[in-house]
C-alpha cells in the first residue's frame, strides 16, 4: 500500500496526465461529472456521486464510427480509429465499477464491441472508497462493497491522506510509474486507518434506508408474471418519458446509430439511446412499444429480469441511486421493487 497527502494530489494528477489522459470528477458550473484533467479544471473528490456515471469514459455518449466523404458523385469511407493510448480513470466508486462489469457483459461478449474493448484495454481504474454513503445508495443490495472497491487500484481518503493500493497488474504498473509521488505505507497505522475507514463505511451502509431492499422474486423464472402485472399501469403514470434515468445510469447500454450530414459527406455515429423515448427501437414498420407504459416496463424488466436471466443472475442495476436522486417525477427502481413487494406481499 502507498499513501499521498491530499494536498499533493494535484502534482500526482499532473504527473499522470503528462503522457496520458486522466479522467476524474471535475466540477463545471456547479455540477460534478467525470472529465479530462486539465490544469485549470476544478477537481472535486468530495461529491459522492457524479451526475452522470463515469461509464462514458468507456462508452461515450456519442462516438463517431466512420465518416463518408462525398466528391461529386463519388463516396469514400474513412473508418474511425480505435482508442490506442492508455488512460487513467481516477475516483470511480464501487458501484460504478460494478456498472462497468455489467457493460463488459454486454460489449465484451460475442460479438465484441471493438470500440468499447479498446477503451477497456487501455484504461486503468483507480477507485475511491465511498467516504460518506448517502440515503439514496443501495449498492449493498447488489453485493457491492462500497468500502473496498474492486479496481486496478483501490484508494481510501482518510482525513487528509489518500491510501493507494494497487490490486492488479495494470494498477501495479501505474503505481510504479508514480513511484516518485507515492509514499510506501506498509506500517500498521496505515493499515488500521484503512481498515477503520472500511469498517465505518460498512456500518453506515447497514443503516441506509434502501440497503435491505429485497430482490426476491426478481429473476427470469417470473418473466411473464412480472411482465403482465397490472401494477405497471399505475407505476408508469408519473413518468415524463425523459431519459434522465438512463443517461445517469452506470449500466444502461442501449445506443442508437445515426447519420449526420456534414454537407460534404456523412458522419455515422452512435449515441446513447433511452428506452424511455418514443422512438427507441423504432423500425420501418413502426414501434413495438407504442405506449409509455410499455417503455417504462421495459427499463425495469430489463434491469431486473431479462438481464439476470441472460447473465447468470447478474442484475443490471448496481444501486448507485442516481435515478433516485435525479428522476424529475421522483420515480425510481426502488419504488418499483417496493411496489411489487407490497403487492405480492399482500397477496401472500
Amino acid at each position: 500500500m502507498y499513501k499521498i497527502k491530499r494536498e499533493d494530489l494535484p502534482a500526482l494528477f499532473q504527473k499522470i496526465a503528462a503522457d496520458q489522459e486522466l479522467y476524474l470528477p471535475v466540477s463545471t458550473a456547479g455540477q460534478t461529472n467525470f472529465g479530462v484533467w486539465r490544469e485549470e479544471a476544478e477537481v472535486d473528490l468530495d461529491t459522492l456521486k457524479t451526475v452522470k456515471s463515469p461509464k462514458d469514459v468507456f462508452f461515450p455518449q456519442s462516438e463517431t464510427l466512420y465518416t463518408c466523404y462525398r466528391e461529386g458523385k463519388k463516396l469514400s469511407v474513412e473508418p474511425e480509429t480505435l482508442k490506442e493510448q492508455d488512460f487513467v480513470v481516477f475516483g470511480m466508486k464501487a458501484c460504478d465499477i460494478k456498472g462497468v462489469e455489467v457493460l463488459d457483459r454486454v460489449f465484451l461478449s460475442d460479438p465484441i464491441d471493438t470500440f468499447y474493448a479498446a477503451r477497456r484495454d487501455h484504461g486503468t481504474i483507480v477507485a475511491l472508497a465511498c467516504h460518506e454513503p448517502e440515503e439514496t445508495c443501495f449498492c449493498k443490495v447488489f453485493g457491492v462493497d462500497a468500502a473496498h472497491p474492486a479496481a486496478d487500484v483501490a484508494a481510501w481518503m482518510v482525513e487528509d491522506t489518500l491510501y493507494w493500493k494497487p490490486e492488479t497488474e495494470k494498477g501495479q504498473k501505474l503505481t510504479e510509474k508514480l513511484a516518485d509521488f507515492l509514499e510506501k505505507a506498509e506500517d500498521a497505522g496505515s493499515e488500521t486507518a484503512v481498515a477503520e475507514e472500511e469498517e465505518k463505511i460498512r456500518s453506515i451502509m447497514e443503516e441506509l434506508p434502501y440497503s435491505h431492499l429485497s430482490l426476491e422474486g426478481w429473476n427470469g423464472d417470473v418473466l411473464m408474471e412480472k411482465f403482465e402485472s397490472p401494477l405497471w399501469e399505475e407505476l408508469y403514470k408519473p413518468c415524463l418519458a425523459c431519459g434522465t434515468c438512463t443517461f445517469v445510469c452506470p449500466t444502461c447500454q442501449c445506443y442508437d446509430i445515426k447519420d449526420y450530414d456534414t454537407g460534404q459527406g456523412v458522419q455515422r455515429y452512435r449515441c446513447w439511446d433511452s428506452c424511455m423515448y418514443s422512438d427507441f427501437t423504432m423500425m420501418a414498420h413502426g414501434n413495438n412499444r407504442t405506449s409509455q407504459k410499455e417503455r417504462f416496463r421495459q427499463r425495469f424488466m430489463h434491469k431486473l429480469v431479462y438481464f439476470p436471466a441472460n447473465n447468470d443472475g447478474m442484475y443490471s442495476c448496481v444501486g448507485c441511486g442516481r435515478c433516485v436522486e435525479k428522476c424529475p417525477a421522483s420515480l425510481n427502481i426502488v419504488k418499483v421493487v417496493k411496489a411489487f413487494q407490497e403487492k405480492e406481499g399482500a397477496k401472500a
Partner: protein
Amino acid sequence: MSIEAREEFKPKIVAFCCNWCSYAGADLAGSSRLSYSADVKIIRVPCSCRVNPMFILRAFERGADGVIICGCHPGDCHYTSGNYYARRRMTLLFSMLDFIGVENGRTRVEWVSAAEGVKFSQTMHEFVDKITSLGKNVRLEDLRCRKS
C-alpha cells in the same frame, strides 16, 4: 488578423428574400447593374414570415458567417401582415443570439421594396463589410461541418 488574411476571408452569406419585394429588389439591383459581393447567395421565400429560426441556425451550423433576411417594408407585405410577424420573431431570435454571446452583427433584417435596387445593393455591401470585419463564424458552427 493581418490584412492579407482578411482579404482571403470570403464570408458565406445567406440572404433570405421575400418573393414580392426583396427578391424583386435584388432583381432590380441586377438589372441596374448595381454590384455587390458574390459572397451573398439569395434564397427565395414567399414571405419573410416563412423564415424559420431553424433555417437561420442551420445556415450557421453549416458554416454561414452571416444571415440576412429581407422582406417588404412593414405595411407593404404582399400577405398583409407576414413581415410584422417576421419582425417580432427575428427581433426575439436575434436578441437570444446576442444573449448567448453570438456577435449580433451576424444577423440582420432589412426591408427592401421591389423598387429599391440601390438599397438592396447598398445593404449587401454593408452587410458583407460587417461580416468581413467580424470574421469567421465560430460560435455557432457545427465543427463536423468544417471542411477538412
